[in-house]
């Protein structure tokens, strides 16, 4: 099933939750919608599911107009952040719900429903919980049951709204891996919403970065990390050093001082210089584009993280390898191995 969204606009009062969004998702993809809260990602997901309606624009499944159908007819599996399980039903009945409410003409008989539910509970590895009630399960188990329930109707598309948002860090990591392998197994076209970049980059085939109701970049996890298309994407994904600079005729200035950095093809004017923390190489004083003094060092973990006060007035955080320990008060030269300049 392919999903195509064209020029989608949705306003809540004067606030534009979606401001002209175009997106195409191919059959069998696992796509992440990534962005800060208020970026419109959940609104986009809910419109695709039929739980919300756009002010204008198109949504089509396999070229067929989806907006002509309600949520009930779209045959879309939806997984909510807070699970939305039916608390008066057992796990078994929750998963069976979608099968039991089918029109009489196509409804399966009781033994086929039982077999199907058993199969789904096996798929999410929770068959031993069939007779429990949702309140007796942990958060991670509830979310897996919610997923099994959504899959029961053999949805054409699977949509997940911050599926791991309400879970603790350890469970999130386990479920991420599990979701990726589950998708590999069932291969249904899936979109999930997250504000956690690590989750998006680790699980998805493709990442859609959104901000303020617009799509900033669509690409593979590698693309959005290594080749961010806009200043927003560079700042949002990965940890970056961000410095306000002036560009004039190919010369980059920080404050009044010209930096020894090439800036071919960058338009003149106020700009932002982005460097990944680990791309800032530490050398002897006078050896790089920047000069500064180490203010603070946190030296545990795979790298040492140092706070460096630049002589130009800014303070930045860098990640340096641990082969040469830095000490507080030490003067260093810093040279970015890779950097990007975006017009502000």
């Amino acid at each position: 099933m392919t999903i195509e969204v064209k020029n989608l606009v949705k306003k809540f009062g004067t606030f534009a939750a979606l401001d002209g969004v175009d997106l195409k998702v191919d059959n069998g993809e696992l796509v992440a919608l990534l962005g800060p809260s208020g970026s419109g990602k959940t609104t986009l997901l809910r419109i695709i599911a039929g739980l919300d309606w756009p002010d204008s624009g198109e949504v089509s499944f396999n070229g067929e107009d989806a907006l002509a159908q309600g949520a009930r007819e779209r045959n879309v599996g939806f997984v909510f952040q807070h699970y939305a399980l039916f608390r008066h039903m057992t796990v078994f009945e929750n998963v069976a719900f979608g099968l039991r409410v089918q029109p009489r003409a196509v409804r399966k008989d009781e033994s086929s429903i039982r077999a199907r539910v058993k199969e789904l509970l096996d798929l999410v590895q929770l068959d031993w919980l069939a007779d429990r009630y949702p309140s007796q399960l942990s958060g991670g188990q509830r979310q897996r049951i919610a997923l099994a329930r959504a899959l029961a109707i053999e949805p054409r598309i699977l949509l997940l709204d911050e599926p791991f948002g309400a879970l603790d860090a350890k469970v999130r990591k386990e479920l991420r891996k599990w979701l990726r392998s589950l998708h590999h197994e069932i291969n249904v076209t899936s979109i999930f919403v997250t504000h956690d970049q690590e989750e998006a980059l680790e699980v998805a085939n493709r990442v859609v970065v959104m901000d303020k109701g617009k799509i900033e970049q669509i690409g593979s996890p590698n693309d959005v990390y290594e080749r961010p298309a806009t200043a927003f994407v560079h700042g949002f994904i990965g940890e970056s050093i961000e410095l306000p600079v002036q560009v004039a005729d190919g010369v980059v200035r920080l404050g009044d001082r010209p930096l020894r950095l090439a800036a071919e093809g960058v338009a003149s004017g106020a700009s932002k210089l982005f460097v990944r923390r680990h791309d800032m190489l530490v050398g002897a004083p006078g050896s790089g584009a920047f000069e500064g003094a180490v203010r603070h060092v946190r030296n545990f973990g795979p790298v040492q993280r140092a706070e460096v006060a630049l002589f130009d007035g800014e303070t930045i955080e860098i990640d340096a390898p641990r082969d040469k320990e830095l000490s507080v008060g030490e003067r260093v030269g810093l040279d970015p191995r890779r950097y990007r300049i975006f017009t502000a």
Partner: protein
Amino acid sequence: MGLTLSWLSIIILIPLAGLFLRTLELSPEQFWAILSSRRTLNALRVSFGLAFAAACVNLVMGSIIVWALVRYRFPGRRLFDAIVDVPFALPTAVAGVALTSLFAEKGWLGAPLAALGIKVAFTPLGIFIAMIFIGIPFVVRTVQPVLQDLDPEIEEAAGSLGASRWQTIIRVILPSLGPALLTGLALAFARAVGEYGSVIFIAGNLPNVSEIAPLLIVIRLSEFRYADATAIAVIMLVVSFVIIFAVNRLQRWAQNRIPVH
């Protein structure tokens, strides 16, 4: 614990014990004769029968009112929300007089109904209406907080799983509200059975037709037939207790199916 029990004894148990002791002045034959008299049986039938019917009407209408108050935003919503409590606060005699004048043959509602051949005031129908009036806040106030807690997402979940609106209400919403609905029903019923003030004004109080059991007790008291009065009171007490207890059990059973988080 000790305090609770002492207080409960002083306030509830000792007066009730007095009631039972008083009936002991009667021989079993006398007791039976009072209960099986036509007038007593009819009064009990009117009280319990109409109270149950009124509680059922309140259950349905109360649920609809709760739904509107919780799920919709409309001008005057807070005002309507406050109006629901009026039957709680109004002296019951005032309610009785107001309802009677409203439904009397020349009243605002009584006149058009009389034209249709329906007589409300001074008939069992009047009792029924008074009981609905005083019972409605019990259903609304017990169901309201539970519905407020019910996440609208579960309705969206049911819809996206292919359930129609009707299936969502029957299979998802009503079962979740079940215990609260039963409590509301029991409270509205209990209140209607015990109601005296508003009913006697509108009832007409015709023996065997529109005479409620509490009124019969008062009549017996005014005739200084105290034992008769207590005998009827005891039987009302026992029947009410059995019904409330049954509803309580039913409610616990429903609640156990939905373990609390």
